[in-house]
């Protein structure tokens, strides 16, 4: 009798502990997803009106469209390119900060410097590329002045290149932070022990630093991949409308009141992302990083 009472009290305390998180997650995460999921099965009159129904028509539409595959390929291309560049830059910036800046205060200062781009809005950050990459931008003018080109390069702005540049600019910090975090936990004595064993700089990076930063790399990868795959704005602005991503397609759908198709696309993209993230989590044990 008494034990069941204490048990229920412990239960109540447990529920109280999780309640703040539940209060945030249910209305702002679970409910919207359920709405989208429900909408994806609804029928539409073609003018924005939804009739509660259970039809797979929207899914069939999306999966049968040749455009879907093209959009996924384009999105994957942006994702992979952005991932590679943010990973390389992020890894080396973190490596430099952790292993080459001896003064801790300076390291923290430089680390904060990495966040400077975030002091201004996303849109400003993208627009600021125009004077650099534009037809009459700095790069073209410089190349023209040096006589290396005769015509301004058009590929610099409003192109896939510009899209990737903007993504890398925006997202490298999401690689730096988790990689920095896991690298900073590597005991400097391990590096010394490796030097003592005769390891070169490259050996140390390959055999010690990279394997021990794996969880940071995985976390950064999850950030970058999910942001790029869920974005349409950068593609729209930086490609000048020339390229599209999966999300831009259902943005268009919403624009023409095709809510169920948009919802079905969204559900499919979510599933694809869940698959990618769980694949990453299977390869690298991130819990180890969080609980360490």
């Amino acid at each position, binding site marked *: 009798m008494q034990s069941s009472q204490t048990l229920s009290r412990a239960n109540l305390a447990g529920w109280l502990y999780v309640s703040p998180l539940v209060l945030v997650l249910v209305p702002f995460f679970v409910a919207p997803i359920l709405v989208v999921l429900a909408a994806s099965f609804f029928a539409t009159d073609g003018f924005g009106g939804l009739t509660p129904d259970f039809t797979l028509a929207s899914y069939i539409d999306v999966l049968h469209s040749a455009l879907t595959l093209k959009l996924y390929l384009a999105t994957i291309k942006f994702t992979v390119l952005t991932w590679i560049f943010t990973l390389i830059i992020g890894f080396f910036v973190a490596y430099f900060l952790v292993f080459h800046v001896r003064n801790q205060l300076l390291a923290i200062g430089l680390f904060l410097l990495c966040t400077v781009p975030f002091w201004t809005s996303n849109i400003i950050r993208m627009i600021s590329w125009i004077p650099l990459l534009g037809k009459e931008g700095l790069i073209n003018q410089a190349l023209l002045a040096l006589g290396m080109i005769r015509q301004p390069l058009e590929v610099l702005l409003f192109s896939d290149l510009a899209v990737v540049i903007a993504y890398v600019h925006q997202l490298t910090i999401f690689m730096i932070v988790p990689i920095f975090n896991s690298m900073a936990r590597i005991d400097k004595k391990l590096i010394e022990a490796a030097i003592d064993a005769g390891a070169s700089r490259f050996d140390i990076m390959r*055999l010690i630093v990279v394997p021990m930063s794996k969880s940071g790399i995985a976390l950064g990868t999850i950030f970058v991949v999910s942001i790029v795959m869920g974005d349409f704005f950068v593609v729209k602005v930086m490609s000048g409308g020339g390229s599209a991503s999966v999300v831009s397609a259902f943005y268009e759908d919403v624009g023409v009141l095709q809510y169920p198709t948009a919802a079905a696309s969204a559900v499919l993209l979510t599933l694809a992302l869940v698959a990618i993230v769980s694949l990453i989590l299977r390869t690298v044990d991130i819990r180890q990083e969080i609980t360490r």
Partner: protein
Amino acid sequence: MKSDRGDIELAGVCKSFDGVTNVVDGVNLKIADGAYCCFIGPSGCGKTTILRMIAGHEDPSAGEIVIGGQNVVGLAPVQRRTAMMFQSYALFPHLTVRENIAFALRVRGMSKADRLRAADAMIEKVRLTQFADRLPAQLSGGQQQRVALARAAITEPRVLLLDEPLSALDEQLRVQMRQELRRMQQELGITFIHVTHTQLEAIALADLVVVMEQGKIKQAGAARDVYAHPHDRYVAEFMGGQNVLSGRVEKVNGSSFTLAQAAPDGIEVPLQRRPSVSVGDKVDIAVRRDDVALVRPGRELPPGCTNSLPSRVLAIEYQGYFVKVMLDTVPDDAFVAYVPEKTFFADPFTVGDVVLATWATGSALPLA
């Protein structure tokens, strides 16, 4: 051709990190090939810095470090053919025991089959065969220590440097691993340099004990020499086992002198090891704690004892095979007698008893 000898010579070695104070201050030392050498001193005395300079992880600000006849300053650890065993071991947490031990061979470009064979042989030597595929976190402290030792020894270095290798272990294991270190050293036949702050560890292991204070060597010699014949007050107090008394010289007569003390006639001290003493000098002397005998007032002093200091018993600690009796013999310093257990309990003292502390006159040792 490279020398295989592991004899080390430090000549005027200094190290300063800030350009103002020398952490290591003009150290000169010779260590024979195949010796077991212990550096001992309180934390911050520069012993670890010396070790790291010999290892090549730190460059001396001045002076030469010669290993096997070759000045190694500026050379990488691999070129010096030294290997270091780090404090708290610094095992690679993501590699198995076998991979940890084979690491040095891997970065030297040895083929996988060869290096794993060599690692397995070494694993057998440190008796870890059944743990070869475990990660360091799955091993006990003693096992981790053996992995660290094996990892350092696999490159067949001519000098093995150990930075407080036993400090992470509990008391019992420490004694056991101490023997294992000594066994490995004899088996490998190479020079071991071991840094510690535990006196017992140093005198139990070392052929050469080096006592340090504030970047300088206070005394270097065989364990027994350093323990039984400390050079000065610092060494005597640091190594322990000695009572240090100081006083002014009252008179000098031939082979001995008399030190003014609480005793009515002063203390008679033989003049070995300290040739020049003149009246009025302030002199420290050391008397081994196990040389001190305690006699009840009025009883006869044991043969050979001419000095006796009246004292009161302050505290008594039972230590097993002896009893530690703390006395108020000298006003400011501790004065302790280690009385054999059987002797003590034949006529036990209690706290507050008045006794005479005495010792064979010849056993007192004047300090520098």
